């Protein structure tokens, strides 16, 4: 099983969180810390790049639910980008496309923030 990792980048006012490996119950707290830190430093525009993420479990999805409201209450958002089909499938299955904007690429997601 490949290790889970996160990597944080900035592009203007947009914060990009790159994910890789396996996001499951075991590794979810790592991502939670990343989001908590972003909120602490008042950075509410977040794009999550899933390009290198190989697997996500529903506990992993829960992390996004746990932070979305805080981001939106502060006129930010969590936008999702570049998911592998199997990862998108889980998001789709659990009804996330209704609540989250999902983009094909990181740039499209960033553009959406900039145009707003």
């Amino acid at each position, binding site marked *: 099983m490949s290790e889970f990792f996160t990597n944080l980048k900035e592009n203007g006012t947009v914060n990009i969180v790159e994910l890789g490996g396996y996001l*499951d*119950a*075991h590794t*979810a*707290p790592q991502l*939670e810390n990343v989001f908590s830190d972003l909120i602490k430093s008042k950075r509410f525009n977040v794009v999550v790049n899933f390009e290198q993420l190989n697997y996500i*479990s*529903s*506990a*992993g*999805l*829960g*992390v*996004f*639910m*746990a932070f*979305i*409201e805080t981001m939106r209450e502060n006129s930010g958002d969590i936008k999702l980008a570049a998911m592998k089909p199997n990862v998108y*499938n*889980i998001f789709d*299955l*659990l*009804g*996330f496309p*209704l*609540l989250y904007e999902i983009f094909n690429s990181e740039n499209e997601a960033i553009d959406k923030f900039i145009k707003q």
Partner: protein
Amino acid sequence: MPHSSEDIRIKRNLTALVEFSRAVNSSLSMDFTLNNLLLSCFGKFLTTKGFVAINSNGFLTPVVLKGINKEELEAFPKIPAENTDDSKAMMRSFVKENNLKLCEPIVSSRGLLGCIVLGEKINKSDYTEDEVDFLRTILGIAATSIENSLFVDELRGLNRDLDKRLNRLSSLFELSKEFGALIEEERISRLLVYSLLGNFLVSSYAICYLEDKKLKVIESTVPKQPVLDYLGTINLQSVTNPVSGENLTASFEPLSRLKINLIIPMKYQNETRGLILLGKRMNLAEYSDADIEFITSVGNLAIMSLENRRLFKEALEKQRLEEELEIAKDIQRNLLPKNLPQFEEYDIAAMTVPSKQVGGDYYDIISTAGEDVYLAIADVSGKGVPASLLMANLQAFLKSITIQNLGLSDATGLLNNLVTENTSEGRFITFFWCKLLRNEKKLIYVNAGHNPPLLIRNNKLQYLDKGGMIFGVMKTFVPYAEEIIELQSGDLLVLFTDGVTEAKNRFDREFTDEKLETLMLGVKGEMKAGEIMNMIKSEIDTYVEGFPQSDDITMIVVKVK
């Protein structure tokens, strides 16, 4: 051979039918089929507008339209998708009102699948009987294709349901794997929450846990205090099944005011040990039975993990206490004299048998530079490490004070002051000590609230009970009294702690002072101190018949030679 116009017409119709049939059967997409159907009609009849409505949840719903604006169809009535006169009449009037021309049902063995509605032809002529026949034929072909598409959609839906179930199963598997390891309470509750959030798109929740009869809200996005206040007023055990909907509003009104939509009990060994409270799902879907079943399973997994963790903590704590007891026992053992000094004038024996729990008995035999002999016996209140430490203090004071060569009464007063300064409230020591002189057979003693030692001479008992207050209650205010006793050869002196006289048998009856006294009065003249001590001990052993000892048993026996 010349072709009649009739022949050409039939041939053209056949070609169109074959083409259409080939096209729609090559695809399982409903949209493709319907699109093709409309376009074929438009091409064949030179129609400019039309739409297809399909049975969706029992009503006809326009899905593919051409030459007609969506707005124009907003007025499309709610027509039951049934082959009834009512439905037909409704369709007919809609067609008429909107200047449309033709409406034909699409029917298969399953019943009414939908209908096609066509507008005016470009040349404004009416549809001929022939054209209507042709339309019916291609509708027949389309019906099979639509039916297939419906099947495929159904299968897709079923597959999606299966995927959902599979996903739930893997969620459960994942959690049980995590919960199986003994992880922190906070992590257990976070995982539970993540899993629920991820699976159900909820954003408001509270997880309550009844740990050791104390209710806690361990995770929550709703205000904790109102939840705690309210749950404090209800009997948690009465929540044995999931509660939602009207039941929740009626019976758990304060929770419903906190926007809680679902209450799921978390059970451990059939007892409700916690609650999962969930708010609305963000996609506004209701919680299905399968959802509730899943949440119940996850909740029960979590509570099991929480309980296991608690039991593990308890076991650890117990182990820690046991280790502490071992340390206390060690301290205590090291305080006791390792070798008994021997004297020409006195035959002295001493023993202490610690109980399983560490008691606070202490004795010492101190002889200063070949001079006099000090015997001390004490019982420190309390057990465990604190009692042992107090005992160690006492011993240190005692050792240093005997060197000072003070009078016994003054020394006792000082000891009490030292102990009082060094004890916390509620702790005390009963203490007896005496000095056996070497050059003359004489005993000086002070008793600070200890069980009076016995002096037996010529079959008569004397209690050594002069002295004063126990140690540790307050500083010495009234000097301790001391008594001097001239000793005679053959005198028997027994110092003991209450562990001797209060040794219990299995009927909870004590050995008693009387029994000890009778025993002592029966001691034969030739017995040595050690023999007498062993006799007392074996009498006690016989009496208690192996019933576990609850207090230390300590004795010093002195026979004046």
